[in-house]
């Protein structure tokens, strides 16, 4: 198992390398000079030249590329163009908020989505199934920010149960959790819809397998068939799809943080974009890339734990 994990980590390196290269290329194809973009069209030539030197834009592209990769290897993500602080410091302060939000949303989505999907599959073509399918399709249709606004309107503006703006720090755990509730439900609900649909279609496939019919035929109680015989093999594709699901969560977290004015990686990224802080934007993309590659490796590892057959490959 350890060997497998090590091998999988090694395999992540070329992927990460490819991602970093794409980010670098994307940031360089920006039409016009980033220095002008930062300083505005009326900047003096001296100011532009100074900024170009500071950003390393006066060097040839391959040198910029090597500097960029070398910096990342040493844990240096560059300085923000606007605040002149190291980008990593800004990222480090908001990262826990995003991780907290994402973790809470995963719990909500799995806790509601898997039972709902199973129920829908077992009661196939009944009212329950129809209801679950329509609701989950509606959930997939709603962008995270709209669900957030609805919750905000009904539960905080009308009922006053939760704060509309979610900025509580980590010093006061209770207040922090209180502020987390609405954003977590917002992000969780969108992904619940995805998990529900995924579970339903996986379970439908499993339920039509012969061994499930055999288990039923020999008179096992239906709940036991579901949990012991159907859920375990069903979990394998569900885990495999978790990578896609986490990617959805990361996208959704940007919108959720924006709606609730909650600090986080997504909010920082939107801010960097509107302020044209290209180096900060690039640094955030690198962090996202790292998270995504790590999550995919983690999913692979869990996958082999759930399905021992995978280890032989």
């Amino acid at each position: 198992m350890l060997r497998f994990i090590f091998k999988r980590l090694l395999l992540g390196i070329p992927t990460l390398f490819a991602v970093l290269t794409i980010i670098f290329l994307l940031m360089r194809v920006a039409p016009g000079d980033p220095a002008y973009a930062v300083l505005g069209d009326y900047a003096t030539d001296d100011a532009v030249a100074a900024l170009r030197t500071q950003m390393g834009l006066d060097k040839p592209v391959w040198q910029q590329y090597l500097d960029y990769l070398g910096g990342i290897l040493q844990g240096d993500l560059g300085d923000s163009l606007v605040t002149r602080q190291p980008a990593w410091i800004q990222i480090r302060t908001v990262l826990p908020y995003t991780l907290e939000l994402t973790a809470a949303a995963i719990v909500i989505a799995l806790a509601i989505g898997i039972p709902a999907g199973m129920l829908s599959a077992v009661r196939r073509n009944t009212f329950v199934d129809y209801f679950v399918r329509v609701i989950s399709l509606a959930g997939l249709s709603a962008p995270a920010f709209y669900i957030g606004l609805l919750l905000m309107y009904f539960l905080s503006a009308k009922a006053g149960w939760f704060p509309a703006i979610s900025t509580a720090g980590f010093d006061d755990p209770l207040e922090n959790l209180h502020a987390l509730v609405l954003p977590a439900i917002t992000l969780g609900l969108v992904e619940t819809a995805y998990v529900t649909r995924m579970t339903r279609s996986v379970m439908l496939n499993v339920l039509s397998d012969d061994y499930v019919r055999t288990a039923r035929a020999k008179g096992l109680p239906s709940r036991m068939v579901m949990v012991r015989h159907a859920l375990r093999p069903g979990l394998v594709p569900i885990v495999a799809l978790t990578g896609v699901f986490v990617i959805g969560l990361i996208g959704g977290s940007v919108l959720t943080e924006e709606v609730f004015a909650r600090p986080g990686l997504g909010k920082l990224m939107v801010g960097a974009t509107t302020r044209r802080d290209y180096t900060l934007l690039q640094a955030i993309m690198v962090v996202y890339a790292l998270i995504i590659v790590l999550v995919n490796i983690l999913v692979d590892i869990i996958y082999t734990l759930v399905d021992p057959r995978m280890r032989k490959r």
Partner: protein
Amino acid sequence: MTATPSVTMAPTAPIAVISERRRAWRAFARNRSAVVGLMLVILIILVAVFAPVLAPHNPLTQSVPNRLEGPSRDYLLGRDAYGRDVLSRIIYGTRIALQVGIFSVLLGGFAGTAIGVVAGYFGGKTEAVLMRLVDVLLAFPDLIMGLLVMAVLGPGLGKLILAIAFTMIPRFARIAYGQTLVLKEREFVEASHALGQRTGVILYRHIAPNIAGELVVLASLWTASAIRLEASLSFIGLGVPPPTPTWGQMIREGTVYLSSLPLLSLAPGVALLLTVFAFNLVGDGLRDVLDPRSGK
């Protein structure tokens, strides 16, 4: 040598095509939610086309003294922070949503399909490079990719379509690639290869038409996600610049008045939800037709 097979093929082929289509249409028509979705989509397209007729007011006319007025007989959904008619802005917003949704999927669909088919058919180094790239792009959330491209390109309708099309490319490429791998081994493709047909002709005449079905289904589902992505980017402030009415931007502007005048945000949101939902229903229905096992 070409005459003999075409003579024997000709009488059977058209009949088979028609009955297959009829079967598919019947299966689709039996799916009630898909039919509802299709009717909704047609309705929404009509609203976009006839926006100038349907909108009671000019969506851009400001009237600061009447700003933030609640719903009234003349202004059914009230007026926004500049005194503009919310209902008319929602009606005109349909145009941007559909334009971006449809054109970005078309653009990304063609580019992605081309990449996938080429990678799948040629294999080797082409395949390795292209599909590696596709996998990497696929690993990123749409929103973050779209945001990055918009940050690089700057604001504007054409650029927004480009950015969203860019997020569509890897999805289409993945599917087209998988299908091409299967088709490549089929006899009729091998036969046309053996007959000495040029590769371009094989790709265009034999491979592309046979993967079109699946791609059209996904295109309708992905139009839904393209429209949602457009609204998300507009909500962040990276969409079509004001004063052009877009739903995402209206929702954003309304959040400030959420407790006093919730309609400003919630009403355009309903339009957005309905539109995305309609395209999802159609896509779901189409998928059931193609793959009866996944549906009811």
